[in-house]
């Protein structure tokens, strides 16, 4: 099936909707927490506008509350967001066709959510044209939503106490589960998930979220090993036939 550009844009928005809904409480809690720190409301909003990285923003607010200095927070942001390098590497074959004017906003809008939706789409539509339109539909929607929620959080934050304790982060967890589970269709992918999950628990306390990267890279390595093993087995079977 061949979609027009505007159709692809709205399809991106539609596919991203579950993640947008999941992100709403996050954005509001971020705004609410932000205004309890030494940051001015403008700085809280500016972080959403210019950094646009949910978990790093939360960590920054947490570190500010513990009166960390800005270089420490910037360094932490670097490690926490390092996983985006893996995302951009994964998307690389699909962005080569675009010039830098398109690549810059694509990179700026790259988050866990936009990557999750995009990689899900590319599984089925790797060779379809106009991927950028789909991507921007999903990513711009996510961006706008994040800004609106930050502002709402800044306004209503203090009138809803303990919102951060409600367990609203579960929304993101189930959204990610909805993306990962359909990808698990053989031994290699299953082992990848099990190893990533297990190691992420063991390495949870490592500084600067380095455990996340360690777990992901180890899991990919195990999956590659099993993939190779399966291929060898298939070859042996073919020769036996």
């Amino acid at each position, binding site marked *: 099936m061949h979609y027009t550009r505007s159709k692809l844009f709205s399809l991106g928005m539609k596919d991203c909707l*579950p993640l947008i809904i*999941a992100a709403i409480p996050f954005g509001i809690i971020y705004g609410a927490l932000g205004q309890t720190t030494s*940051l001015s409301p403008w*700085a809280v909003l*500016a*972080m959403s506008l210019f*950094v*646009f990285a949910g978990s790093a923003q939360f960590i*920054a607010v947490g570190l500010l509350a513990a009166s960390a200095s*800005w270089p420490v*927070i*910037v360094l932490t*942001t*670097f490690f926490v*967001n390092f*996983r*985006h*390098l*893996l995302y*951009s*590497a*994964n998307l*690389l074959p699909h962005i*080569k066709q675009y010039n830098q004017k398109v*690549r*810059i906003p*694509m*990179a*700026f809008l790259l988050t*866990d959510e936009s990557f999750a939706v995009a*990689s899900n789409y590319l599984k089925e539509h790797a060779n379809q044209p106009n991927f950028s339109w789909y991507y921007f539909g999903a990513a711009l929607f996510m961006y706008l939503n994040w800004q609106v929620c930050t502002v709402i959080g800044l306004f209503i934050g203090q009138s809803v106490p303990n919102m951060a304790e409600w*367990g609203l*982060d*579960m929304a*993101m*967890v*189930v*959204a*990610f*589960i*909805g993306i*990962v*589970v359909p*990808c698990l269709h053989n031994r*290699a*992918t299953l082992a*990848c*998930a099990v190893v990533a*999950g297990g*190691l*992420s628990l063991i390495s*949870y306390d490592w500084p600067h979220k380095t*455990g996340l990267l360690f*777990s*992901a890279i180890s*899991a*990919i390595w195990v*999956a*590659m090993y099993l*993939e190779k093993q399966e291929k060898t087995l298939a070859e042996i079977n073919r020769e036996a036939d």
Partner: protein
Amino acid sequence: MEEFWLIIGMMAVTFGIRYVLFAAADNIEFPDKLKRALNYVPIAVLTAIIFPAVFIPKGELYLSLNNPYIIGAIVAVGISYWKKSMLLTVIIGLIAFALWKFLLLNI
């Protein structure tokens, strides 16, 4: 002034990480093995985000049926496996989580 440098710094490192490979994309050709490895990125990274959120919800390992995150996650995995629909997974997973939390609070 502090907050100005904080935001500039966070923006620079975040955008830098996201853009560096895109910027150089024309001159990069990954070897086949690396390309195949990168296919596992969504599973590996997203799962490494999911597990701590479910099993370490408050900073400590919480392996118990009283942990509503575990119940919600199990239901979500089941629905996703069965229906392959993200929207359904999100809705039913969240309902299971909320119900379990509510039930435990009221027993």
